[in-house]
């Protein structure tokens, strides 16, 4: 069964990818979407089996892969609680995104390619989560990276999309290097790449030390730190986060699937999968906590200032991943996985909802040109509302809450309850980030769905109004990147008084709305239904992650104010957003003016891109040019290919000259050859 779940998407990707246009859009869509719904339908029973406690973890062998000396591993599919959670998350979101793309990509000329990539991604992600050894996990890890690259750059005629794709790939390579070094190190220390064997052997290595880069370090700390670098790259943690916002250049369904619900959580998954190892590495865990908390706060601050609807959600993703990591860092792996689970639903929902808004607004992504859309696209509005209630964590203690209420509360409680200094710091940073989360989420809602229509200022809308609504030229949304600019670049046009420019947004087709509705159900109920199992049940986890009974008890015994913190800051954030974006819309402008430097610092994403350009990219290009001019052209080409070719050319000319056609010169050469041979023997 698990084989079908994993390999059906691969088969579909091969069929759709190789068939491509020969197959036609409909066949490609039906094959890939059908395969994903099949995988999804088979995944839920597995998950429910683990939920009910009836299923047993197991490993299904597929093929023997490598046997070289003491290095030996198989292709095999591991199924346990952790995998089962990921299976339902991946296959459900992927299936819904496939369906949603029927509507969203309807006008795109390259649909088979798109769907093939999506299915390929799903396959790679499934390989990652079912891996029983680190090499197979790395295969999936690289596979999702490849698919992400291909999908970010899907509109390859758009230079910004290509640049974003390359950026994502390169930044991920940095992380991958860490991951690889981690795998090498684990093999070095334990002599195996099998995850269960490593986890069993791990306690024996506790307390040992290893020399790395000339320093004497605790073995497990350094190994876990290297693995965490890999996780940082994939999960866009502070420092290696720069690719995620740019990845929004890809089509919105891709953002929902890869850059919100699944791939970016691979890092969290990996840390949880190896949690017994991390449990033995206190220093590495502290680093995880701190980086997670810092990312959580950093991304939330940036999210408050962005205008592009997708970027706001992208930074929100980055921030939520920070929550997951610091939960894992303090040892609450169950809470981390729970947040991953709920986040997948509400974040996919928010992205797909944003996609629906963008679709309705004729590919306008700037929230400054939205407003008052709740009456125009009510279903999308209510879906987005569910997502926002979930992400901001609305709920009443012990009664009912939306998905994020349970998972985020659990994380904050765990951070507080851990008692460590890093944990307490993470608690406060997380609480403040929760305030910001609430603020930017409601800001997004208010700007988009309330207020007066400001559509007339958008050139996309202008274009749509003047050129007819379904202009075929608009098949691709070749949107310019504008978030680097402080001011809108749109050409103002005479407002017709109501700010609509005569434009009528249209609700998306049902293929797009149905996934929204299904995900809304998840966003509303996922927390309420599952929180007991995920947080409180060691039996549910069944040994697939490190489960700390102690911490769980401590979590339940935290003071009441800690439990209420998340709700309080949520209300504060909501209030500020209401104040600034509904009641008196001049406040944000004044605020930005008065705190100019801070505003610009945050608006420009803490200048990470500029800093990296200065210290990495420019020197790298400089080195590249030097090597190109001096070494490649000046030395290798000159004395290598070009030099040899020139020599051959001259030789050929000489040979031709020698072949004069005169008999006597031929005879002379023969005799000279003879004389040379005899003299050689004479003098020898």
């Amino acid at each position, binding site marked *: 069964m698990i084989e079908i779940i994993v390999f059906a998407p691969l088969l579909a990707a091969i069929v759709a990818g190789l068939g491509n246009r020969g197959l036609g859009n409909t066949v490609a869509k039906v094959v890939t979407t059908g395969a994903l719904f099949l995988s999804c339908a088979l995944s839920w029973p597995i998950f429910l089996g683990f939920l009910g406690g009836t299923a047993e973890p197991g490993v299904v062998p597929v093929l023997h892969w490598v046997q070289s000396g003491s290095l030996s591993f198989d292709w095999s599919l591991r199924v346990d609680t952790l995998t089962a959670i990921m299976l339902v998350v991946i296959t459900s979101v992927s299936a819904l995104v496939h369906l949603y793309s029927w509507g969203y990509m309807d006008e795109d000329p390259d649909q088979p390619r798109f769907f093939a990539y999506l299915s390929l991604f799903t396959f790679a992600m499934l390989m990652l989560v079912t891996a029983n050894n680190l090499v197979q996990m790395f295969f999936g890890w690289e596979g999702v990276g490849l698919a992400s690259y291909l999908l970010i750059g899907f509109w390859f005629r758009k230079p910004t999309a290509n640049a974003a794709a390359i950026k994502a790939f390169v930044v991920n390579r940095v992380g991958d290097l860490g991951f690889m070094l981690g795998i090498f190190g684990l093999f070095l220390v334990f002599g195996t790449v099998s995850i269960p064997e490593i986890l069993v052997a791990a306690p024996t290595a506790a307390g040992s030390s290893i020399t790395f880069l000339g320093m004497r370090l605790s073995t497990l700390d350094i190994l876990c730190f290297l693995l965490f670098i890999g996780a940082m790259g994939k999960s866009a943690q502070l420092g290696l986060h720069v690719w995620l916002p740019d990845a929004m250049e890809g089509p919105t369904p891709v953002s929902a699937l890869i850059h919100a619900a699944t791939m970016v959580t691979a890092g969290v998954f990996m840390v949880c999968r190896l949690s017994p190892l991390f449990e033995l590495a206190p220093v590495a865990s502290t680093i995880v906590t701190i980086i997670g908390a810092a990312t959580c706060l950093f991304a939330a601050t940036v999210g408050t200032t962005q205008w592009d609807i997708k970027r706001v959600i992208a930074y929100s993703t980055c921030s939520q991943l920070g929550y997951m990591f610091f939960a894992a860092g303090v040892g609450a792996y169950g809470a981390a996985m729970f947040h991953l689970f709920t986040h997948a639903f509400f974040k996919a929902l928010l992205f797909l909802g944003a996609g629906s808004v963008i679709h309705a607004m004729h590919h306008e992504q700037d929230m400054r040109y939205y407003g008052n859309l709740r009456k125009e696209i009510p279903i999308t509005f209510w879906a987005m509302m569910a997502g926002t209630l979930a992400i901001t964590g609305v709920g009443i203690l012990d009664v009912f809450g939306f998905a994020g209420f349970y998972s985020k509360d659990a994380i904050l409680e765990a951070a507080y309850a851990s008692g460590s200094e890093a944990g307490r710091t993470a608690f406060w940073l997380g609480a403040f980030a929760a305030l910001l989360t609430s603020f930017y989420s409601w800001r997004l809602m208010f700007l988009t769905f309330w207020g007066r229509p400001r559509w007339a200022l958008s050139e996309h809308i202008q274009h749509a109004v003047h050129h007819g609504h379904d202009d075929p030229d608009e098949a691709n949304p070749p949107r310019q990147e504008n978030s680097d600019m402080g001011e809108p670049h749109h050409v103002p046009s005479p407002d017709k008084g109501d700010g609509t420019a005569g434009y009528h947004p249209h609700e998306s087709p049902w293929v797009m709305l149905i996934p929204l509705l299904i995900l809304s159900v998840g966003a509303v109920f996922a927390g309420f239904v599952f929180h007991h199992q995920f947080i409180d049940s060691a039996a549910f986890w069944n040994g697939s992650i490190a489960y700390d009974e102690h911490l769980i008890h401590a979590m339940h015994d935290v003071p009441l104010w800690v439990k209420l913190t998340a709700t309080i800051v949520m209300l504060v954030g909501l209030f500020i957003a209401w104040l600034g974006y509904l009641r008196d819309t001049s406040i944000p402008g004044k605020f930005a003016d008065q705190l100019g430097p801070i505003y610009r610092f945050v608006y420009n994403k803490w200048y990470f891109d500029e800093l990296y350009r200065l210290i990495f990219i420019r020197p790298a290009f400089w080195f590249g040019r030097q090597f190109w001019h001096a070494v490649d052209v000046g030395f290798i080409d000159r004395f290598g290919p070009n030099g040899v070719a020139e020599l051959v050319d001259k*030789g050929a000319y*000489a040979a031709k000259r020698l072949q004069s056609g005169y008999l006597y010169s031929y005879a002379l*050469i*023969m005799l000279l050859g003879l004389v040379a041979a005899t003299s050689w023997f004479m003098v020898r």
Partner: protein
Amino acid sequence: MELTSSLGLIAPEILLSVAGLFLLLVAAWAGDRASSAISIAACVVLGAAFFLVAPSVCAGAAGLETVAFGGQFRADAFAGFAKLMIYAAAGAALVVAPAFFTRYAAMRAEYPVLVLFGTLGMSIMVSATDLLTLYIGLEMQSLAAYVLAAFLRPDQRSAEAGLKYFVLGALASGILLFGASLLYGFTGTTQFELMRVAMAGPISTGTLFGIVFVLAGLAFKISAVPFHMWTPDVYEGAPTPVTQFFATAPKVAAIALTARVALDAFGTHADAWRQVVIFAALASIVVGALGAIGQTNIKRLLAYSSINNVGFILIGLAAATPQGASAMLVYLVIYVAMSVGSFVAVLMLRDEDGAPVERLADLAGLSRTKPALAFCLAAMMFSLAGIPPLFGFWGKFVVFQAAVQADLVALAAIGIAASVIGAFYYIKVVKVMYFDEAVNVVRDRSDWAHWALLIISTALMSPLGYLLTGPLSVLADRAAASLFFLV
């Protein structure tokens, strides 16, 4: 008794000479009208000779029972192996000829007869174990070849080719004879067996000179650098079927003869002549490759290609081991098939008026006008360049392997490096055919014989050829063993 067994051993040669004389009479009697009948008869004779030789090759005949006429002639498996190639190549030269000569109204009855006599000479060459037998065979082959080169008498280039070949051939013969007389003077014998015994111990300068002169004379025949100068001119000037003949049968004969002289007569002093052979091998590879690059005529290009290939074959000789000799034979089989295929392809190229096309530039766009022909020729070129999985790679591989196992690693390495240069011009031909815009309309006026030969040689050079590696190696190993079988 001795005479009867000797006559039995030279049965193929007797058959060839009797048939040659008889067909000559027929030609004199019936004139050119009978030329096609004589061609067919000559082919049948060659086929008969082929089957007379085949058993000894399969059996790996060696030792005393192969010696005829008191040590002047030996019909062992090595000679037999070479003879099979020679007969097959001569047959191919007969088969392709009529279509070519008919255009010039020059299909003369003498052509098949001359080929037969040439073949007889070669047959004697490869079996010669005495300097006199050697010389008779060599001259018999050469005289037939001089006439064949000038066969298109009205064509200036053909006449020039014949004359050049004759003059330089005479010079080479002179050198060879001088060397032979030196050897006779210093060893007191002309028989290879006795010569090897006489040479044992420290070598005298006179003997050394004799060896060098004899080898130089033979190097002319195999067109090894620096005795190669005639090759491009003669190959270009001679009628294409004759060129094909020159590139195949006499090469096999001369190389087999050289191998026998070097390994048998001079076998005790391999260290002395090895240096000369190594130099000739490397020089041939490099000059062959460099010379070919500048060529615009396909036949000249193939002439340099043959020089280049001879270099690789000499690497096998330089090894001076049974394995090296076996590798030479394997390489020769592949080389003959490739050469026949390439020249047949060239023969099939005609322009609008039916005149032969020889310029490289005229091949432009052949892949579109004549895709099958272009494909076969491309296969030949890739095979000549030694690119796997084509069979040409195998020949180079076994030769280099033999060199490495004889501790001539540097020689093998340089040979491999130089073969890269060779790949350039072979692939250039493919480039011209497949990527250049067509300028002339090339048509082929070929008959079934051309296509049959081309398809056979293409099939041999295709990866299918590797199916033959087993039996081919077994036969070549046996043949090489018989060469090293001391009587």
